[in-house]
């Protein structure tokens, strides 16, 4: 894979150690929509990308991005009355970005798709015994991504193809006890 000009610029930017680099044009466009209520636009773009990596679109159904997972998490955090919880999401995203810089010398959103997966693979490996800040963030990120996705229209209908919550006017579905 050739290094694009944008990625090269990103390496330079990383050296300046900004807390969060603004997302590339592509991510910004994808994350376009109503302005986030809690996260900054760069944080929101990062969350949106992480959620989509956890539950991606595939041949079967759309993924977390189409399901609006980042927007839902953003809304819940925006009205949260627990400052520690809000802070832990901010610092969690920063930890992911810091790990990306450490591994690849560039922010998460400026890393290549393979590099992004590598970062996530690294923190997911310790899912049940997290130690670093980024590892601690992953279970929370994944829990809320799953929770938001599988309660969304996309998750319930397109992915799970849930059959219930309907009036069954005849017999119940299922088998008789014999």
């Amino acid at each position, binding site marked *: 894979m050739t290094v694009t000009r944008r990625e090269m610029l990103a390496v330079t930017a990383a050296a300046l150690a900004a807390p969060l680099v603004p997302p590339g044009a592509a991510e910004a466009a994808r994350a376009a929509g109503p302005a986030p209520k809690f996260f900054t636009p760069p944080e929101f773009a990062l969350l949106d990308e992480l959620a989509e*990596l956890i539950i991606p679109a595939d041949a079967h159904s759309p993924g977390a991005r189409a399901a609006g997972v980042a927007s839902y998490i953003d809304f819940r955090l925006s009205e949260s009355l627990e400052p520690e919880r809000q802070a832990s999401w901010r610092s969690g995203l920063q930890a992911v970005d810091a790990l990306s810089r450490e591994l690849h010398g560039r922010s998460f959103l400026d890393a290549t798709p393979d590099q992004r997966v590598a970062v996530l693979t690294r923190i997911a490996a310790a899912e049940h015994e997290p130690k670093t800040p980024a590892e601690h963030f992953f279970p929370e990120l994944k829990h809320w991504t799953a929770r938001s996705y*599988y*309660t969304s229209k996309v998750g319930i209908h397109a992915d799970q193809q849930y059959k*219930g919550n309907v009036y*069954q006017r005849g*017999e*119940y579905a299922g088998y008789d006890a014999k």
Partner: protein
Amino acid sequence: MTLVKSAPPMSQDVDLSKTYDAVVVGSGAAGGMAAHVLTSQGMDVLMLEAGKKLPIEQELRSMQWPYDHPRRGDAPPGYHSLSFNEYNIRTPPYAKGSTFKHVTSYVGGWGGSDYVKNILVDEKDHPYTGTKYAWVRARALGGKTNIWGRLALRLSDYDFKAKTHDGYGDDWPIAYADIEPYYDRVDRYLGISGVKENLPHLPDSLFQRPNKLTFGEVKLREGLKKMGRVLTPYRAGVTTDGLKHNRYRSKCYGRGACDRRPGGCDIHAAFDSPTGLIYPAVDTGHLKIRTNSIAHEVLVDSNTGKARGVAFVDSVTRKSYEAKAKVVIVAASTLESARLLLLSRSPQHPNGIGNSSGHVGHNFCEHVMGPGVTGLVKDLVGKPPTLDDGRPGGFYIPRFRNLKDRQPGFVRGYGFEGSGGFSIFPGNAFGTPGFGAQFKKEVRDHAGAFIGMGGFGEVLARYENYVDLDPDAKDAWGIPTLRFHYQFGDNERKMCEDMVAAGREMFEQAGIEVVGTDDKMLTEGWSIHELGTARMGSDPKTSVLNQFQQSHDVKNLFVVDGSSHVSASCQNPTWTIMALAWRSCEYLAGEFKKGNV
């Protein structure tokens, strides 16, 4: 779409200057049944309920899609539901010092706290003290029947005559034959679904159309047959065929919101006390209801020592009132009823009314739960989704221990509640490792392939397990709170160990791969089946009530809820509470007419 045929009766003015035939404290399963039976016998009844009358359909919103709710069912910021850890690491009062504006019991955390936040009490206003206890209270017209789990089981002589069977504790002052006709009446009046199994230890009801089973549940049933055990479709206190005599309730349409909310049915196919019992009683013209009325003393006639009414405080205005009645019926729930009796001290009844035995608050028992097993039905992995949760419940495995056998480690028994198949939320998403396309596919392929069940075991009635009044602590209305002195014992621990082993064995016998077991006992109180604090018996020295739930000490005082139970059995108590209350209130009405109370 609403299928409820009639709106609830309008609220009425309550005349407190008159003397009612009976005042009933509490509007749950027991109070509702008392109102039904007494009004149908022509008695004029006043019902006092501590909580609000809620627009319950708007609270429950049974068919609301998660994505149509701004917080996917969660309560707004400021609400907090207590967790297992909080109950165990801390001691009551659990809401003390909480930074949250509202604190509710763990039930709010079942996934849908917004739907129950107004039904459950705010722990901040309703503290209690003593040993750890997950006390779930619903102060609203209908009480906990607004959110109950619907499993409606009968007790048998293995329960009523348990001491005769194994030597522990005390027999009840009644036998199955005494209560059977009243179980039948409850079945017919309220509706129950299930399948006949002809088991001596779990008598059949008069069932309406049963639940169906899912593929995995059938597989487990087949496996259990080989072991001589039974898996039966959930015996749900739900009318599945409809009730021609009740214009407030619809039949069940298998809409399937039952399991993903903390109970509650906005078309009232599932029994709840307001639509099942109270509104029809109002229609007789003999029932008046006063909500927001917190009873704090049974008043006594100083000449006769008999009850003459109930003192209560209005929860909103905080004004004090008296309700006058010829008979007082306490049905405030096992623990609140004990509290009310203990609060009612007078020169005639210095230890609390009806408490000459000293047994009020004691012999407190319930069900222990927590241990369970999760299995994977491999045949189902990757199969297309089916409609599995459109029914009032999954399955029940009746008790199989200490019937003909004698377990070395414990007396009495336990049953399992469980279900398998697809539901609206794939719970396996939280346990599936990794991320990405593989994770997503794995969640999808396995979502309907799991089956799980958890045990409900009998907690022995022990005199040493009790509640009393805290000498210092008071609730938001200045009423002394309960103080708990209660803990599980060795019999419960041994029984719970056996639940895990037996659950595992049954899954293995059925060819279901065990993917997880839970051996943790949940906090005391978790089953919401507290019982026994004013037990029945034939000896006034060791019991509070006679076989008609009538106070040994005070002839016109009845306590018709779960506090009267002599032992917990392992079957869920609601149906027995109602059958007993029916029997007692019929007796009471007869005695009332004869002038004997």
